[in-house]
């Protein structure tokens, strides 16, 4: 029987193929709970989960909160705009203070890449990464893979095009780590200013010169958000020009396989990375991604509670 032995989930890079498959299959089973009249199981009764968000989030924070509550854990949300971080408290001090209240899991989003590893060394509870800087966003990667598996029944051999600002995208990194471990082929496209050097060394990853090249015969087209809060003004001339070269629209989607899946981690800049007709069209799986997010996060919370200290 497959067992999950990690106490923390910080990056899909740290997980084996078997770990990822177990998290996804558990999420498939968890999904049934979300369709019941009584959407709750007693599994994590008595556990305390702190959602510590140093960056804005709607989907991920709500999704983690609902996931914890559906497993009967007590969830507490801390957003930094209303916390002591605004008074200058360091991450380490905040963590030690939270720890004094004996949480079992801290779910954190932080703008500094790798901050979760720093935190994991300081605390004795589980750490789940809800996004760290430009590093990883493992729950998003897992829910994207679950959504692709829903459609194709497998991940092995899929051609996945990821398009946009790869440099700043933790979503892209988690997807690349996870998808290549499970046998998918990843094709990246984006402005050269947004393409990190050496990204092809992460696995079965091809960097394409143009968006059309990446779209060619793709099973899945994943569009990334232009992160205007992270990049300076120098990476692209303006959003209109970006949209012309790297926006998804009803014309260039025809290069992909017929009825290819269109995905986006949200929030969407409509008319920039994709046209509204693509967001709302019948190839869009965007809301299914959000729906799967709850089940994936339930799976992650469930498995780290049984993990051993690494």
């Amino acid at each position: 029987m497959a067992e999950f032995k990690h106490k923390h989930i910080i990056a899909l890079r740290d997980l084996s193929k078997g770990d990822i498959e177990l998290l996804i299959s558990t999420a498939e089973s968890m999904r049934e709970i979300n369709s019941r009249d009584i959407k709750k199981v007693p599994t994590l009764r008595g556990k305390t989960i702190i959602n510590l968000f140093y960056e804005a989030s709607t989907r991920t924070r709500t999704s983690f909160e609902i996931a914890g509550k559906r497993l009967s854990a007590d969830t507490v949300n801390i957003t930094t705009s209303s916390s002591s971080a605004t008074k200058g408290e360091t991450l380490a001090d905040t963590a030690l203070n939270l720890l004094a209240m004996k949480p079992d899991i801290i779910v954190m989003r932080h703008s500094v890449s790798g901050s979760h590893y720093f935190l994991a060394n300081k605390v004795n509870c589980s750490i789940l990464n809800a996004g760290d800087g430009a590093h990883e966003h493992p729950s998003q990667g897992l829910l994207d893979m679950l959504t692709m598996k829903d459609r194709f029944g497998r991940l092995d051999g899929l051609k996945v095009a990821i398009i946009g600002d790869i440099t700043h995208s933790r979503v892209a990194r988690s997807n690349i780590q996870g998808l290549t471990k499970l046998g998918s082929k990843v094709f990246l496209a984006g402005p050269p200013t947004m393409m990190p050097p050496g990204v092809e060394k992460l696995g079965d990853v091809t960097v394409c010169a143009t968006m059309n090249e990446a779209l060619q015969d793709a099973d899945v087209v994943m569009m990334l958000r232009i992160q205007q809060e992270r990049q300076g003004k120098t990476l692209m001339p303006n959003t209109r020009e970006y949209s012309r070269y790297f926006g998804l629209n009803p014309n260039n989607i025809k290069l992909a396989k017929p009825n290819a899946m269109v995905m986006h981690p949200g929030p969407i800049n409509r008319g920039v990375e994709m046209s509204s007709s693509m967001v709302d069209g019948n190839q869009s799986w965007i809301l299914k991604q959000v729906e799967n997010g709850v089940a994936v996060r339930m799976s992650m919370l469930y498995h780290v509670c049984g993990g051993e200290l690494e």
Partner: protein
Amino acid sequence: MADDHTVLMDGEGIKRALTRIAHEVLERNKGVADIVLIGIRSGGAFIADGIARQISIIEGGAVPLGTVDITLYRDDCSGQLPHQAVGITEIPFSLEAKKVILVDDVLYTGRTIRAAMDALMDFGRPQSIQLAVLIDRGHRELPIRADFVGRNVPTSQKENVQVIFDGLNQPIEVVLEK
């Protein structure tokens, strides 16, 4: 056959037991009205399938059949043991006011049954829950008893009773391992 491995029932014996259980279920409940069968994943689900088939042969109509996975309702989840994979619970009908026949392959401590009953309650308020098991091996740790039993087998706690299924999930024998 080695000394540490005794066959308690063969495929024919199991089939006769399931046929008898099917008759008993129908007798006690005066037919199939409001009856649903729920098997506990995974062994119990296969046994429930066998009982459901016998009932439909006797009565000439199918009974609703569901599967419950009890992993999320276990009472040993809070320890630091690695958590098991979770199977899918499939109860595609309401249990409200139904007579639920809960089915497992081997009844032992009763903890699995407790967990399964808690799970069923989350799907509505059944009129009753009755328990059917292929083997009752004793050593209860909770106040639970079966309504329908294929065979009572006195065992020691050091022994292990297993129902063996073939590739098509048909029960082929029950073995006692010492």
